[in-house]
């Protein structure tokens, strides 16, 4: 499924002042009153064309990166024109400006930004690096997300999201999987964030990270109990498994070729529904589902392969039976046909005295 850009979570310019962007050493020159201006798209722009007078080029509410070329171009303009262009562009719906390469922002720009409360940053980093870092950072912090009442585990490297109603045994199943050596990302509350290329990244809230609640025992810390290798912080979701109460008469996939999917944030992931009943070892079943998925990833689909071989068997058996029938049946068949024909002729002969019938007789 393609990612629609519309559902990015908008964020204030303030977000850019983050320890994650420390390497850019962003310095706020002016416009601190405008730090609550929004950023609507994670992709940044270079406003060169706008400074040249093509204002339509500026897309609303994006970070504008001003590098050496924009600065040099502006400097080449006659002062009054430069002042007008800078004033016009600053007056558009821009989120903020970042001047790169350690260039001192032009006075015109600084004055306009100050007047209109548009944040103006400077950085020593190159434009290309700044663009990369800022757009990646924004893509992450603006990615659409939601919280699912579920568990997330890394089973043989496969991100398995465990869904199911409260009390069905998600936590117990997750614990069993950790006990088998798999890794817990989150239990009970999984935050899912959509990234480009249909990636659904799952992680835990800071507070709950590595913790689990078990009815009757209480809150436990998996990392403390099972060690550092028993948990991990985030993992993309590959497979969704839903634990369901076993209801007689409900149809479950018996072949494994139905290809059900689970949709989350507009992205579909393979989906397996597991009916829960006493005597079923859920962790083992989840483990098998993950192994099966792993095989599919490598191009081997057990169920489809079996179905293909069975269809061949049906065809082969049918051919054998037809051949046998052709050899063995004709006399029998003919005899049966003959006898039924005879019988009907005989009955017609016996019970009707029509002349037409009489004529046909030899």
């Amino acid at each position, binding site marked *: 499924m393609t990612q629609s850009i519309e559902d990015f979570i908008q964020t204030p310019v303030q977000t850019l002042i983050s320890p994650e962007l420390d390497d850019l050493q962003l310095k706020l020159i002016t416009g601190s009153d405008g730090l609550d201006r929004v950023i609507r798209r994670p992709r940044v722009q270079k406003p060169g064309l706008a400074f040249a007078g093509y204002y339509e080029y500026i897309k609303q509410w994006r970070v504008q990166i001003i590098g050496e070329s924009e600065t040099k171009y502006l400097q080449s303009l006659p002062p009054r024109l430069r002042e007008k262009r800078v004033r016009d562009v600053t007056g558009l719906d821009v989120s903020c400006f970042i001047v790169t390469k350690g260039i001192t922002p032009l006075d015109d720009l600084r004055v306009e930004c100050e007047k209109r409360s548009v944040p103006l940053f400077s950085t020593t980093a190159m434009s290309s690096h700044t663009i990369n870092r800022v757009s990646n950072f924004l893509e992450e912090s603006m990615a659409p997300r939601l919280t699912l009442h579920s568990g997330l585990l890394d089973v043989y490297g496969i991100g398995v999201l465990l869904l199911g109603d409260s009390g069905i045994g998600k936590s117990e199943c997750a614990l069993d999987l950790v006990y088998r050596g798999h890794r817990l990302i989150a239990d009970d509350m999984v935050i899912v964030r959509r990234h480009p290329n249909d990636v659904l990244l799952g992680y835990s809230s800071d507070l709950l990270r590595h913790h689990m609640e078990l009815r009757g025992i209480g809150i436990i810390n998996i990392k403390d109990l099972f060690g550092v290798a028993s948990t991990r912080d985030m993992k993309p979701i590959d497979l969704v498994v839903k634990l369901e109460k076993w209801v007689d*008469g409900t149809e479950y996939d018996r072949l494994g*070729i139905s290809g059900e999917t689970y949709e989350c944030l507009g992205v579909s992931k393979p989906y397996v529904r597991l009916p829960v009943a006493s005597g079923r070892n859920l962790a083992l079943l989840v483990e098998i589902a993950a192994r099966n998925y792993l095989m599919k990833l490598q191009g081997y689909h057990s169920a489809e392969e*079996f179905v293909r071989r*069975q269809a061949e068997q049906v065809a082969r*058996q049918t051919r054998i039976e037809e051949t046998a029938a052709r050899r063995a049946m004709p006399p029998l068949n003919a005899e049966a046909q003959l006898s039924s024909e005879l019988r009907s002729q005989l009955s017609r002969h016996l019970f009707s005295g029509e002349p037409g019938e009489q004529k046909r007789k030899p």
Partner: protein
Amino acid sequence: MFTKDIEIKNKLGLHARAAAKLVHAAAKYRSSIKVRKGSEEVDAKSILGILLLAAGRGSVITLTADGEDEMDAVAAIQNLVDAKFDEVE
């Protein structure tokens, strides 16, 4: 105990998807249901069993149901087979 012979009429015979439908239909009834083809007899509620029969078009299977809803069970399976498992051919 109720027994009936049914001829398989769909083009692909008792292939995987058809077998799954038969098993789903059988699983709705409480009776024990057996399917026989030639010398092979399997449980109608077992997908692997039904697949093993590999019954093609024209072959005849014998249904044997035993239980309170045996007649309904056989009728339901017969309907499914006669409807060619609702397949588009």
